[in-house]
């Protein structure tokens, strides 16, 4: 990789200052996306600001109508947290499916959400549960946060501090893995929430999205059969070596049904 200046602030305020001062700075949390990018010389930041020493970004707290998870919390911590398992078991299950054992020790929920990879798992949970993203500047609802492929509502230098997930009546997540990368070819998060059924789909399109048709079908009958009967349009869905848009469309309804059937 190319050379860069390295900073390790211990507060969010210092991190914000450091990125403001850099000519072309990048935050790094778990580094699970950024470091491979740097090694392949696909990016050349002037400064790297390491967020892993900031205490304000850590911690899991049951509070309010659900659970708040610090942006710097690793996937492994979420998967193994007794609080998450008790409050929103589908969220712990999703975290346990991310990457592999090594990735889960390093990757963070804040990094995943900020990066918004079209095949990432957490955006499906955030959108599916109607989470709130708390940054060092404001609070952003999930419905307003995810803008498209690798694009979010975050402004330059804005730092995610935590995510708050309201506890659903029940929820489930089903992930169909792209056989090579084992990323989600399609991942569907289904939740029965206070404001109705929410169905969030990752991997199938250019970014995470909600499926109105599946929300309507499962809203009426929260079962595998109700979902299977919904024909999802292939329009606008991703097509590549690993699956056509039609295949992804079919997986969306299959996985939604399985997520509903297994919802806890």
């Amino acid at each position, binding site marked *: 990789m190319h050379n860069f200046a390295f900073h390790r602030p211990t507060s969010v305020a210092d991190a914000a200052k450091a990125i403001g001062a850099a000519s072309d700075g990048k935050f790094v949390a778990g580094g699970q996306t950024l470091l491979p990018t740097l090694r*392949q010389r696909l990016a050349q930041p002037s400064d790297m600001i390491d967020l892993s020493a900031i205490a304000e970004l850590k911690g899991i707290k049951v509070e309010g109508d659900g659970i708040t998870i610090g942006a710097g919390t690793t996937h492994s911590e979420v998967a193994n947290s007794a609080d998450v398992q008790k409050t929103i078991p589908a969220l712990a299950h999703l975290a346990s499916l991310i990457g592999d054992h090594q990735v889960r020790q390093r990757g963070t929920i804040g990094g995943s959400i900020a990066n918004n990879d079209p095949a990432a798992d957490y955006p499906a949970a955030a959108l599916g549960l109607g989470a709130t993203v708390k940054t060092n500047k404001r609070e952003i609802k999930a419905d307003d946060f995810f803008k498209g492929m690798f694009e979010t509502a975050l402004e330059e230098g804005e730092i995610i501090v935590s995510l708050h997930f309201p506890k659903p009546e029940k929820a489930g997540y089903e992930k*169909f893995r792209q*056989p*090579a*990368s084992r*990323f989600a070819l399609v991942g569907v998060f289904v939740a029965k929430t206070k404001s109705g059924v929410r169905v969030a789909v990752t991997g199938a399109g250019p970014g995470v999205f909600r499926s109105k048709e599946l929300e309507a079908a499962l809203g009426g009958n929260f079962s595998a059969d109700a979902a299977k009967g919904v024909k999802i349009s292939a329009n606008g869905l991703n097509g590549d*070596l*690993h*699956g*056509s848009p*039609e*295949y992804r469309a*079919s*997986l969306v309804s*299959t996985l939604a049904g399985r997520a509903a059937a297994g919802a806890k």
Partner: protein
Amino acid sequence: MPEGTGSATGIGASVKRKEDFRFLTGRGTYTDDINRPGQTYAYILRSPHASADIAKIDTAKAKAAPGVVTILTGADYDKGGLPCGWQIHSKDGSPMAEPPHFPLCKDKVRHVGDQVALVIAETYAQARDAAELIDVTYQETKPIISLADADKPGQPQVWPDAKNNTCFDWHIGDKAAVDAAFAKAAHVTKIDIVNQRLIPNAMEPRAAIGDFDRATGEFTLYTTSQNPHVIRLLMGAFVLQIPESKLRVVAPDVGGGFGSKIFHYAEEALVTWAAGKVERPIKWTSDRSEAFLTDAHGRDQINHAELAMDKDGKFLALRVATKANMGAYLSTFAPCVPTYLSATLLAGVYSTPAIYGEVKAIFTNTAVVDAYRGAGRPETTYLLERLVEKAARETGIDRVEIRRKNFIPKDAFPYQTPVALQYDSGDYFSTLDMALKNADWAGFEKRKAEAKGRGKLRGIGISTYLEACGIAPSAVVGSLGARAGLYETGQIRVHPTGSVTVFTGTHSHGQGHETTFAQLVSEGLGIPIENIEVSHGDTNKIPFGMGTYGSRSLAVGGSAIVKAMDKIITKSKRIAAHLMEASVADVEFKNGVFTVVGTDKSVPFGTVALTAYVPHNYPITELEPGLEETAFYDPLNFTFPGGCHICEVEIDPDTGTVEVVNFTAVDDIGRVINPMIAEGQIHGGVAQGIGQALLEAAAYDEESGQLLTGSYMDYCMPRADNIPNINVGNHVTLCTHNPLGAKGVGEVGAIGSPPAVINAVLDALLPLGVKDIAMPATPHKVWQAIQTAKKAAE
């Protein structure tokens, strides 16, 4: 050679591998671990285009970059091209097109990854930084990527001398006999098969260190090779014109090869050539992205086959037309893979009396294609076993019975096939029956019904196969176009105090020869296995050998060791006779001790060894001192291991996911030296076969020629959870023509398995009306096949 005395360290014992101590504790010495004093580092600038003219290369800025020692391009390269080791002639007798293959491109680049410039600097990072400053002006031209289209008129031509991108157009067999049989056939089954391109992915990427000693004028190449002597010969004689007496090639520990490390690669020649220019060692290490782009790829054949049968399903004739991708250049053994390693196997285990095969070798703007685990035999086995399976479905004859009724009878050996090869021994009936039993073929319907209850489609598939390996009888392959001999060498040096070093021209890169060859010698000379060292990989130490590939190391290399042992024992008996004051004819050797028949006189091997080197009480006027013997063994024939693989799968019809739930292999590999190692070879081979059947495929973009599967994000390697526990069985018919009776086991796992897996997938999908599917049968492909069949049924 003794049968195996039941000793815990002799033939037939599952001795734990000696190599594993260093491999498992990180103490292996791989090429990249070696560092030479004053070492510099090489980085190769590679073409981003599949086809382009090089108009200009400007290295001025790059040469001025920090740490740069020199930068060399095709214009600086003044030596020979990389040679091809096998010449094929076309049907009309003309020799194959043999375009030049320079290690640095001179005027054109012909595939993404082709070598454009060699940057040598004090550190790897400096070399890489400098490469970014090289300014290359390319004029892109349209590449030809599709194997199916490349020989059609009007396509871009990779080489001016290879019209319609055709390297050769070869055939084998008896066309007239085949045509006559088809005319009389009661039924003809046809099939079109694609055997997809694979990327080998040995765990250790390639590396090479070139060194030149100004004081002595000697060159040294350290390289990740399966055959150091072959590299020394090819590079020394044909590329750099260095006499072998001044060129040492060392292959230290090598982390897997599967064929991809047989060939003489550009990087080996470049670091050696450049070391002579800069007079400092130069180290090059591939990264994984480079390996994807530039390691020789495997397979990549398109086949059309037709099988003629009589009314009872007896095979009358087979004809096959094949297109085989060579890539942009001819790699070292590429022409022989689809011809002499594929088409000569078209009889398989069957008694088909008439066979005709045609093979067109085609150039495309892709990476070179050459031997990869099985090298031609998986392609043929897949073709045959898919064709026979289809024939069974079409005629309504039971899939097992149609095979059984066409097997070569047990008493028909030696069996001359219609495609050059003569099989020495084999018993396909026994391996079939054993596999059927081990796999509980009879109980399948019950398991299928139970799976249905869980919403899964269960299928079972079979493959009965053999292959030709133990490569090879030199005169035979020479008459077929090989430019090398394929004997092997074994040298046994007994040391004065009784320990032994075995020098072998084979080169273990995962096969465990340091253990198995030591077992052979421990048994043969009756000495403790701890006293035996097996040395391989250094051309300065070892007589000329051809290396490890083609499942040859035990059959050919082991046989050479046996022959050398015979010579050791012959000489030792004379020494022992002298010590015991007996006649040689009365001396027996058993369990490491020489005795005189009918007496209680004895002398142990250790005493004989010491005596040979301290020849005081010694027949000095009749016998030279010393105890070391060399044997070169040229095999009399190929060897023919084979057997039966049975695979069971469960398919999720909604997602198309295929799970392998059972895999049974029963193989006849002749004499087994170390059952644990043999079983490990089957495991690995089957894993690669499942990889080909369900997961792996190299793909190039047909417009741009970019490698779409350039990393593990898109190229799907099998992981542990893709492979079930494999039920490995064994049935032995000895090879009749080598002293060990060994047939070889390195490749059979990868050869027999893919058709068993795909036949199982098709069996599971048969009720849905699916009749065909291509490898890899990914979830996407399976789902698509189901949808297509559903639509056709509407």
